[in-house]
């Protein structure tokens, strides 16, 4: 693969000739719509999601809320094919990225995951790497060669987007594990952004963070709006209300698989919920 600096900003990368249906992740691509259709999930015999359909509009922030164990993480992990890493896991349905199914047998898993990045609940920087190397780890993993200048640019750009640049610019070559928890989480966000994903999935990214770091991450998400489609799982109702455009409420009855009870614009979900259970949940009157 080759890499070129296009328009001094976006890094253009050309695909191997075997022809992929998806545009390349680093081609400065825009936010994409993600559309889950009738997604069900099982762990072994146990069904944990039942025909969940949800459209996550391009360039918007979608929040997934709901009580513990109702399948939010499972749903999120299905959206970038991480679910299948669990040996007993299986699923049904489709996940369409700009109209084409990421589970299509002719599709490469690695490419789908590069288009649809993920930030985990627990920050997971690569301990053997410096902050600098961590940020562009995705390039190395994709086998993309880049010049020193391009790398420097990408590192600064990604760290700025994750509002971490000012804190680490003087120690880029120190280990990523030496940062505070909140900084590590923002490093992980920067790492995901460096491969220019079209969708960014976040599973409770702030649950281990202090209020200040949380605010920083929220600002980052707000600044990503329009560039990336964000899907975020959160237990913090205020956070969901603050940052999301649309909201989906998941619920699982005792021993039943989880499903979406209600979804819609965040404003409406919080102020005029249609379903009583949603109303109870968003107002904190729930289990």
């Amino acid at each position, binding site marked *: 693969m080759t890499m070129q600096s296009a328009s001094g900003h976006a890094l253009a990368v050309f695909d191997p000739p075997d022809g992929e249906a998806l545009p390349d992740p680093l081609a400065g691509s825009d936010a994409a719509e993600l559309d889950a259709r009738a997604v069900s999930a099982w762990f072994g015999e146990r069904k944990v999601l039942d025909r969940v359909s949800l459209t996550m509009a391009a360039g918007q922030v979608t929040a997934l809320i709901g009580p513990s164990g109702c399948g939010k993480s499972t749903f999120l992990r299905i959206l970038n094919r991480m679910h299948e*890493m669990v040996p007993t896991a299986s699923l049904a349905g489709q996940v369409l990225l700009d109209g084409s199914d990421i589970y299509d047998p002719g599709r490469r898993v690695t490419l789908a*995951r*590069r288009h649809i990045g*993920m930030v985990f609940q627990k920050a*997971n*920087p690569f*301990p053997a790497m410096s902050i600098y190397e961590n940020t562009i780890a995705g390039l190395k*993993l994709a086998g993309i060669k880049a010049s020193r200048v391009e790398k420097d640019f990408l590192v600064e750009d990604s760290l700025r987007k994750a509002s971490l640049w000012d804190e680490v610019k003087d120690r880029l070559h120190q280990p990523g*594990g030496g940062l505070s928890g909140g900084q590590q989480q923002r490093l992980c966000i920067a790492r*995901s952004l460096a491969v220019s994903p079209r969708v960014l999935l976040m599973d409770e990214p702030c649950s281990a963070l202090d209020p200040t770091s949380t605010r920083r991450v929220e600002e980052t998400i707000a600044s990503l709006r329009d560039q990336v489609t964000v899907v975020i799982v959160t237990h913090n109702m205020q956070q969901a209300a603050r940052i999301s455009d649309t909201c989906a409420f998941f619920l699982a009855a005792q021993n039943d698989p989880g499903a979406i009870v209600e979804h819609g614009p965040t404003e409406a979900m919080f102020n005029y919920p249609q379903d009583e259970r949603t109303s109870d949940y968003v107002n904190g009157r729930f289990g």
Partner: protein
Amino acid sequence: MSTVLPGTRAAEAQDVPRPLQQLLEQQDYLFRAVTRVGGGIVLAVMALVGLFLAGNGIGAIGEVGLGTFLTTQNWAPETNDFGIAAVLWGTVQIAAVALAVAMPLALGTALFITEVATGWLQKSLTSLIDLLAAVPSVVFGLWGAYMLQPNVVDFSKWLSTWFGWIPFLQVDGVDPGSPLRDTVPYTASAFIAGLVVAMMIVPIQTSIMTESFRRAPTGEREGAYALGATRLGMIGTVVLPFGRGGIIGGTMLGLGRALGETIAIYLIISPVYAINFHVLEKGANSIAAMIALKYSESNESAMGALMAAGLTLFVITMLVNITASAIMARSRSGAESEG
């Protein structure tokens, strides 16, 4: 309402660290005593072995002088003409062959067990490796001499025919053009002994590496996959860096075993007391094998010489093992503080 305290420091307080002591519970006291005795015994045995070897061997070294002892190749204590050079060289040579073969094999096996195999295959491979570690070395020696050697000499011959231009793969005294299948010059070599030792150290290396690869946390693994990593890419960025201590430590422990291996080498080599650079060529030796060979026919002064050889081996293996455990301890604590 919160109470706001004035920001003053009590001037009368002594601001020095105070001694911290705790009264031990009887159980803990007993436990400490038992573990101390256990640890003490281990240390004492080590020290006694070292002292015993030193006490008996240093005299012999003194008789010929340290310089002569280290550089002489011959082993003839009767005429006071003996030195460690040839057997030490042979020991290192066999260990090097063993390591060069065992290291990649163990690394591949460990990666296969942790990263590729699943379910029953993973479980049975793990126990098979542990089983292999329990096979006595004399069995390996017999297998090497009667099963491996006849089958591997043709490979030795092929190697030296095609790669003989590399000095240490050269074999003297054979005519490569000869149509006869003359494999005798390729038997009983350091190469074959090294192969057998490799088979013996693969299990321990594999199990140490497997254990260290398993410690690579799921979070970091998934982080790599979520960036679009292939399995190989994930192994390179997460598993191998996490397992580095295990790779180095396992390799070094294997090296320690290879250096001290006795009976398997004894059964295979035909001993020579000269430095032989050609690994594929008949004739090799090692300190441990020489001690086993000479022990029964030695009088008191010859015994002293053997003790000196034993002391050399003891010191070398100690150094290797100490380095190995230091590396493992350091990288383990490093991984933990970072995780």
